[in-house]
């Protein structure tokens, strides 16, 4: 009844969801009576709030064909944007999100996400144990997701200028003075410096170690061309020759190779920064069962293989990897035998101190 009356109020061609999105942006959704919220609808649709990388139309087609689920995706470009929109009333708009592991605890503690039923995730047994057993996806003993995709931020280099590289030393080598690019982001850059110093657990650093990291990064400054903020910027720097070695995302490699730059990608022997992402239920979704069904599907070999082929991101499913040709596995930029070399992004012991140290480095 309420739904129909609302529909009558709407101009033709505007979906109710669109209206709720608009309302959400203005923060009004929170004020709507519960009966009007889209989650009440009994249809088999899921509102997915996700990274723009998962915007491939194929995922929606696949969800429709295989599960009969209407996947409606809205996108964010950073974890902060995801958190900000969820806080600003987004929990009323979305059924599920795709967080990175280190945002699970903040989101859970801020009451933005809902635990999943482990029994519903039957495909979890096909996932590499490093991911299916990861404590980062559990908060207070409750499971919030099992990653379907993973990767690492690592080192990209211009092979013509540097030859093969395998060590973080290159990022601190005066030989490449003024041609090194680092990321303008403490969670990556402080961890990289810590790994270079031989600190095994960067995210658990105490003040004394933070000071050493700060000293190292300040001494590195004259060597650094620029700190990059967006992945497009580091890609440009590598393409134009402003930088020959960079701490980077894997996403720059394929376009650079296509542009004719002989660019290499390596997980340095000292370590690289790992990430994983999972389908996670948004707090208060009325479709938890459906979310779990879809989450389980993303863990299947079928989904993993499809994802690897369309997006070049690495599936966390053992069976999916087994279905791929060796060359493609190599192109995914992962090294499953060396997962131990990764330090998975975590919440720093004192996050605001980390930000401050990074600002101190930049202001020095």
């Amino acid at each position, binding site marked *: 009844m309420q739904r129909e009356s609302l529909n009558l109020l709407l101009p033709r061609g505007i979906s109710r969801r669109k209206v709720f999105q608009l309302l959400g942006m203005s923060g009004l959704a929170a004020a709507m009576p519960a009966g009007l919220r889209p989650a009440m609808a009994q249809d088999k649709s899921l509102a997915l709030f996700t990274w723009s990388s998962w915007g491939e139309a194929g995922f929606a087609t696949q969800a429709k064909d295989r599960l009969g689920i209407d996947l409606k995706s809205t996108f964010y470009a950073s974890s*902060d944007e995801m958190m*900000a929109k969820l806080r600003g009333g987004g929990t009323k708009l979305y059924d599920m999100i795709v967080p990175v592991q280190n945002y699970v605890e903040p989101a859970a503690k801020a009451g933005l996400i809902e635990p999943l039923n482990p029994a519903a995730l039957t495909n979890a047994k096909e996932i590499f144990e490093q991911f299916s057993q990861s404590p980062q996806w559990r908060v207070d003993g409750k499971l919030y997701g099992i990653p379907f995709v993973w990767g690492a931020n690592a080192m990209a280099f211009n092979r013509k200028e540097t030859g093969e590289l395998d060590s973080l030393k290159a990022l601190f080598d005066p030989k490449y003075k003024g041609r090194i690019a680092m990321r*303008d982001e*403490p969670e990556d850059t402080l961890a990289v410096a810590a790994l270079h110093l031989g600190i095994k657990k960067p995210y658990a650093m105490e003040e004394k170690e933070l000071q050493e990291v700060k000293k190292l990064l300040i001494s590195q400054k004259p060597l650094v061309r620029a700190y990059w*903020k967006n992945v497009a910027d580091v890609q440009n720097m590598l393409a134009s020759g*402003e930088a020959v070695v960079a701490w980077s995302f894997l996403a720059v490699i394929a376009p650079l190779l296509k542009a004719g730059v002989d660019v290499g990608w390596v997980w340095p022997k000292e370590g690289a920064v790992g990430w994983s992402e999972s389908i996670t239920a948004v707090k208060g979704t009325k479709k938890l069962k459906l979310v779990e069904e879809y989450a389980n599907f993303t863990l299947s070999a079928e989904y993993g293989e499809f994802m690897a082929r369309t997006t070049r991101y690495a599936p966390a499913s053992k069976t999916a990897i087994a279905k791929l040709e060796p060359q493609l596995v190599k192109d995914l930029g992962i090294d499953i035998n060396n997962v131990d070399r990764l330090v998975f992004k975590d919440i720093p012991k004192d996050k605001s101190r980390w*930000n401050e140290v990074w*600002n101190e480095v930049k*202001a020095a």
Partner: protein
Amino acid sequence: MRAKVSTVLAFLAAPKLWLIIFFILPMMTMVLYSFWRVADYQIVADFTLRNYQKIGGNLYVNVFLSTIRLSLYVTALSLLIGYPVAYFLARKVRRFRLTLLLLVILPLWTSYLVRTYAWMLILGTQGVVNQALMSLGLIDAPFTALLYSDVAVTIALVHIYMPYLILPLYAVLEKIDPSVLEAAWDLGGGRLRTFLSVILPLSLPGIASGCLFVFIPSMGAFVTPELLGGTRSIMIGSIIAQQFGVAYEYPFGSAMALVLMGLIFAAAAATLRYGRPRGTA
């Protein structure tokens, strides 16, 4: 009479409502936040002065100072380049004045981001400047100090904000009564003397508001320094943006934004006070 008063009040209500909703309420929220703190990823409404104490520390005072310094450079350069342009447009040109004015405003039609990125292409190691200098044989190796430096940030900010200085200055210069200038000449003032004792003092209000229009946005700039700045070009705008983004420190960010706003208000008040026209009786 009564009806008239209520009509006036009704008309006043709209702008007042506008001010309250879009200015006063957000501002009050920020003031409140700036005394609160974050615990366990939630904002907790405990009264604390910690945020302001933190700003008083070495790190942030230095960032504020370097931001002020860079903004002053940008303002001075804009004035140095913009004044002759405005003067020329207002007092020398007759025929193509509108076209030329349009050319001044034209850059404003392009997105701020596009203009910032354009400077990357111009100043880069393989950029237009270096290529030109190299092909002229003036240098052997490209300058690398152009892009990713305070120089690049200053150049881009001057380019982006200078139109805001030229326009008010133009308006003031154009309004100067020619008879005042004739009087100055009649009294034996040369070109320079006339400029220094008549035109310049009369254009002070234009200089003041034009400089403010450049200084204020420069103080808050964060996209340009992040894209073009070197490893040292950290500005307060970036730190504030960081508090509302990665750091999730709304309280600290609010405190810093309020301090920035205070500095800007102080600069504006001082400029407007001392920027009154002088030399007029």
